[in-house]
């Protein structure tokens, strides 16, 4: 049995093409998938991501100074062009306010109401509730990615994943190999 396996192994080794040829074939296959994908994504606008919002909840019981959590999350980071619109929702049973420390925006929220604000300038913005002064939060706003990094960043959003084809092939190989392995194991 061992001798047969060894003979089979030797036969396979003899039939294998040189490593350089294998690497070249693999390179061409990978590039044939990656390049069209990269070109295609360079011309695609990232519309859905630009409309992304970040949500902040005024939690139930926020009126109680011992609640521990008031705005959740109390600190968030957003990126201009990606998710620079923040939506506060009052999940408490009483009125709350969202007032910027620099007074650039403010609103009073009844239970269940929402308040939306879009940040257009990078920086750190602190806000608080004027009714319950112990309630404080902050929003860190990051600038949009510069257009010099990649050709795809000029649209202002997160660039699309350019290796979809490669991953699809890899996942297919994994699934196929897993299926065959399980089938072989069951047959014993």
């Amino acid at each position, binding site marked *: 049995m061992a001798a047969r396996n060894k003979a089979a192994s030797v036969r396979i080794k003899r039939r294998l093409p040189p490593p350089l040829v294998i690497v070249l074939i693999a*390179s061409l296959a990978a590039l044939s998938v990656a390049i069209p994908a990269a070109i295609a994504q360079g011309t695609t606008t990232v519309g859905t991501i630009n409309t992304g919002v970040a949500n902040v909840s005024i939690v139930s019981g926020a009126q109680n100074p011992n609640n521990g959590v008031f705005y959740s999350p109390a600190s968030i980071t957003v990126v201009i062009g990606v998710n620079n619109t923040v939506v506060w929702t009052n999940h408490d049973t009483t009125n709350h306010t969202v007032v910027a420390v620099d007074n650039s925006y403010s609103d009073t929220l009844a239970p269940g109401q929402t308040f939306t604000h879009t940040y257009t300038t990078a920086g750190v913005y602190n806000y608080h509730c004027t009714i319950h002064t112990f309630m404080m939060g902050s929003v860190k706003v990051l600038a949009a990615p510069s257009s010099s990094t990649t050709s795809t960043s000029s649209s202002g959003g997160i660039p699309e994943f350019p290796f979809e084809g*490669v991953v699809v092939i890899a996942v297919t190989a994994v699934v*196929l190999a897993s299926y065959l*392995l399980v089938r072989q194991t069951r047959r014993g």
Partner: protein
Amino acid sequence: MDVYATAATGMSLVNIVLLGGLLYLYARMVSKTHAGYTYGLMIFSGLLVAQNSGMAYLCGFLNEYYNWQLSPYFAAVAVLEFGGLLVLLRITV
């Protein structure tokens, strides 16, 4: 893009190519021997392709969205992986 992110991206792309070659070799072996161990190697290689694709995307396209201080670690992982794959390719072919 800093030099480490560039290195990590480049090495990840090279790793994908090497893994493609390994997958091809393993597929040929599977077709002839149907050895369970080779199925396992195919699964291993396929998952590494997915991981390297993610790494190349992260370091090459999203480097403004993560802390740049992580780039040397990403580059180190990619280089170590490259070394391991070279050894694997050497003993396979």
